[in-house]
């Protein structure tokens, strides 16, 4: 089971035990996982980059930026609340261009933020 699906599965179990509020959270996290996989992971996911690159470009850029002070993988970051994420997404940063509302809605950004927090928490408990 991948880290992402572990995070979702953990939340789903918790939701079943704790009722509608957590079920809503689980749905948000699942939505975030889907949007992240579609729009973010091709650059910010784990694994090798193309043609011998050690990491995917976004992950590598954050690795060089933080030098271990923060995780290079966004799925290990618990410090990206939706407003922060939205600034990067809507305005772009460094070589990452902005993403428009027609690609990633404001609700999608909320969901990605929830997913990253859940994913980071799951990783901490591994």
């Amino acid at each position, binding site marked *: 089971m991948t880290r992402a699906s572990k995070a979702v599965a953990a939340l789903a179990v918790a939701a079943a035990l704790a009722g509608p509020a957590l079920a809503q959270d689980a749905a948000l996290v699942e939505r975030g996982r889907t949007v992240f996989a*579609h729009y973010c992971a*091709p*650059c910010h996911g784990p694994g*090798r*980059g*193309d*043609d*011998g*690159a050690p990491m*995917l*470009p*976004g992950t*590598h*850029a954050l690795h*060089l*930026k933080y030098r271990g002070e923060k995780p290079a993988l966004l799925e290990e970051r618990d410090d990206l609340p939706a407003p922060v994420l939205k600034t990067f997404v*809507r*305005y*772009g940063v*460094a*070589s*990452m*261009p*902005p*993403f*428009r*509302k*027609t*690609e990633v809605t404001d609700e999608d950004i909320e969901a990605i933020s929830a997913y990253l927090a859940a994913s980071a928490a799951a990783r901490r408990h591994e």
Partner: protein
Amino acid sequence: MAILPPDVSPDDFAAALRQFAGAVGEEWVLTSDEDLAAYRDHYSPVPLAEEELLPSAAVAPAEVEQVQEVVRIANRFRIPLYPISTGKNFAYGGPAPNLRGSVVVDLKRMNRILEVNAERNFALVEPGVSYFDLYRYIQERGLKVWIDCPDPGWGSPVGNTLDRGIGYTLGFYRDHVAAQYGMEVVLPNGELMRTGMGAVPNGRAWQEYKYGFGPDPSGLFAQGNFGIVTKMGLRLMPQPEHWRTGLVTVPKRRDLGPLINTVNYLTDLFMIGEPWYGSPLRALLGNTEFYEAATRRGGVNEDELDRLAAQAGLHSWQVELQFYGSERTTLANWEYAKELVSRNIPGARIVDGESLPVPLTREQIEQTTGPYPTNMRRNVTQGVPSLGIWKNLGRTEAFPDTWAQGHIGLFAVIPRSAEAVFEAQQVFGDTLREMGMRTSITAVSTPVNWYQFCFLFSAGFSTGGGDFGATPEGKARVRDALKTLLLKAGERGWGEYRAAPYFQDDVANEYSFNDHALRRFNETLKDAVDPNGILAPGRGGIWPRRFREGRA
């Protein structure tokens, strides 16, 4: 940052926005600074902010009928529109319009894959579909067809085709306009038209015969401004069973001629995929003596370069070949290629490459230790979209804190011959060095063979942070260098195949045979079908009458 469309009053613009909202829903008329920031060209080469190509608003229809209504409203208020598909045409303007103040028609929400047929090998898609979307759709269903994707792969097959984009597999498929088979278009008056067999009501071979009867206008919509394409058919390559590669190197500088001729022969018999040219001598560019020999102004001394190559024990040129087919047919074609090379080029070295069943596994695509070092980009040769090419931008080990934010360049169309390559090396290299520009163009630079029947010779520059020219002065230098190169290329009979909005007039000016007869013809058509000049004014260097005086 509020900007008005040109020649439109604030009251009229406000009224138009209300009508756009009636057509597409208030949520999808975007006017706030935050919303419009995402429609800027993130890699803009424009030096001055007041000249940046910014939109006045964006509207995002989800249905063809909404596109038609948006066009009718724009005609009513004479508002220029600029359609985008996925908005990822970076280095060629991204989601930003051609004309400052235009309203961007963002087609990303039209993202339906209407058909993928793996028996007759085609797809029919809307403009908001990305290469990733189409690839995932095919993979999830286990269909045995390939897409031919550009690099990076987050763009739209429709949008890429309409900018005459390219890919990396077999010649027919990597020429994306050639592989376009049928369009649906909203014309500048709001009417809906289909090309080819789509013009036959209930036409049943729309993606199998693209010409229909009479003139085929589909070419007008690529790098043009004659309509908004809302559906497009694409020919898809059947998934081959096997992929094989091989390397050929040749010792002397003049051997590039017979090498290119041999590869042209194989290419034009449709026996090989994209050939990847290179030079083993690039390894010597750090050597002062060799660098000076390879950048000698006015032309290199070929004997000197051959001597230095021989001293280093290196060959002068190489080409990587690739074959798609069955295990046996790819072997037969590679054996035939080896026979031709041996016959045509004394001293050539031939190395067997990889021989793998298709589809390659993820591990095989990521494999970097083949029989020889390869320059091939492995995802795209397998029709797999990726964003991995962004490793060339952003932070790198060499520049962890100052980075190339974007890039811009030109790709001159030159003949598929060694003489043309040698001439381009000298003209481009000398021009840039005389201007004091940092360039990697030398006497060992090689062209790309993206389009099957021509070479493209490129000169590229980084734009962005740190040392890479983000300042207005840095961008102005890049602009001046590119414009100078365009003029030099034009003098030699070369033109560009594609250009960012900022350079489209300059490129169009190169195509000036008989006092710009081609442009005059296109603009006569433009005035006839778009009398209000609302659709993408200036795209492809084609200006409607009302804006023609603004031509650069």
